[in-house]
């Protein structure tokens, strides 16, 4: 590669040209994908290993089987006797990336959250999630099984696990609880409102002056979304109408991605890695595109101009599919990227305990590497937090852009 001289185009252009020659994504994104794939591979290998261990126990020799039954017998008594359970990495990871009734703070301390149920048979039910005692107890006919609220057979008794689930009554439950993710959403919305009200006030108070304080943090990002996202994807004429949505989407995703990286209380929820959240965001984009689509846009979907009839027979269904698949991919991409980030960090931490079970020394030894890798991955996730917010906003803007695009006059 030649040495850059003054007046040469910026380095990014070099990457662009190189990428273009090879037909690849931009430099940064390919490295990011490579690392992510590698880490996911490592993570899945290690998860596979723990599963294989269980299989080995189950289908082992007679001696081993006898041993397992004994082990099972001890776990059965573990509820009372506090016999040490085997560390289950898969369960730990899935619990952490999922939603919960109650927010685990540290040790055995959990922040109880309100459980709000609308039962079509019994009406509105509101009580604290601490009543469930982490899934060990039932309350008022409800219990937690695999983090889901279910109705149990004996409605009056406050029993203990294992529960007999009443399938019919469970179907009557609409769970609208303030869960971990909902609380996390409230917190991030409060933070966003505080930041933007402060900044908005600063703009009116210090009109015409240089920006100060929080303004310095927010202004470059807003300008970035305006110039690099909205203007470049929608066009100079029409971008203003969509700026409120694009900015909201960007800052919402960005802040929640960052909060997901904070390992303790106000952070740590996997909000942007929750498919329900990304579904709603993609749905909003889809609605905006569909409502604002002009004649040109619909014309290109249903009857692509300049295409022979027999090709149209295939192309029109494909275009209609594409209309739905584009937001669908938007939903999957954000969900998968953020969830993968959480899984990677948790896998590295789980390694410590998996090795720690064999011997303390092995656990400590692995801990050093785990920590180093986690720090490295977290640095990368900081980048991903921004890139994913950018990609979601940019692709949304691009779909909107294609919907409001004016036909070109030749």
């Amino acid at each position: 590669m030649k040495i850059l001289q003054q007046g040469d185009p910026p380095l990014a252009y070099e990457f662009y040209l190189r990428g273009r020659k090879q037909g690849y994504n931009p430099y940064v994104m390919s490295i990011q994908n490579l690392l992510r794939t590698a880490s996911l591979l490592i993570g899945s290998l290690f998860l596979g290993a723990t599963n294989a261990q269980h299989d080995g126990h189950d289908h082992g020799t007679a001696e081993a089987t006898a041993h397992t039954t004994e082990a099972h017998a001890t776990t059965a008594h573990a509820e009372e006797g506090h016999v040490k359970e085997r560390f289950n990495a898969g369960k730990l990871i899935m619990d952490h990336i999922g939603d919960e009734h109650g927010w685990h703070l540290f040790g055995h301390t959990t922040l109880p959250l309100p459980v709000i149920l609308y039962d079509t048979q019994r009406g509105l039910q509101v009580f604290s999630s601490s009543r469930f005692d982490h899934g060990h107890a039932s309350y008022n006919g409800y219990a937690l099984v695999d983090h889901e609220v279910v109705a149990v057979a004996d409605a009056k008794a406050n029993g203990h696990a294992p529960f007999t689930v009443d399938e019919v009554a469970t179907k009557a439950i609409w769970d609208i609880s303030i869960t971990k993710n909902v609380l996390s959403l409230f917190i991030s919305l409060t933070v966003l409102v505080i930041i933007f009200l402060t900044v908005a006030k600063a703009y009116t108070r210090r009109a015409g002056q240089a920006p100060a304080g929080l303004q310095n943090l927010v202004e470059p990002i807003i300008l970035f979304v305006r110039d690099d996202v909205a203007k470049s994807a929608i066009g100079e004429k029409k971008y203003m109408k969509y700026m409120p949505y694009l900015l909201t989407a960007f800052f919402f995703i960005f802040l929640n991605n960052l909060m997901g990286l904070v390992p303790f209380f106000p952070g740590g929820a996997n909000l942007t890695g929750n498919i329900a959240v990304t579904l709603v965001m993609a749905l909003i984009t889809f609605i905006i595109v569909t409502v604002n689509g002009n004649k040109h846009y619909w014309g290109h979907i249903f009857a692509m101009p300049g295409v022979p009839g027999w090709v149209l027979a295939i192309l029109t269904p494909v275009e209609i599919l594409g209309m739905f698949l584009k937001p669908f991919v938007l939903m999957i991409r954000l969900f998968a990227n953020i969830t993968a980030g959480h899984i990677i960090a948790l896998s590295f931490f789980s390694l410590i305990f998996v090795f720690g079970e064999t011997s303390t020394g092995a656990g400590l030894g692995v801990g050093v590497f785990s920590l180093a890798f986690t720090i490295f991955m977290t640095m990368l996730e900081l980048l991903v937090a921004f890139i994913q917010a950018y990609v979601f906003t940019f692709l949304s803007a691009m779909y909107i852009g294609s919907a409001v695009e004016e036909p070109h006059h030749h």
Partner: protein
Amino acid sequence: MNTNQKGTAGKVRSGYNSYLRFTGLGFTMIGIILVFCFAGYWLDERIGWDYPVLTIVLSLLGIAGSMLYLFKETAPRK
């Protein structure tokens, strides 16, 4: 490479963004093929022929459709 700085910067911007435009292309193509396959499978189940003609025909059409979609999406914009 001797274009003026401003012109190049504009190119960089659109070039970089055009890559982003293609990030969802693979998944969309897979999606198209899958939807066509399942549509064929579903139709075959309903009709109940011994030989799954529609699954084969529609999955091939899905592949053709995804290729068409690829050409259309990557065609230079006027």
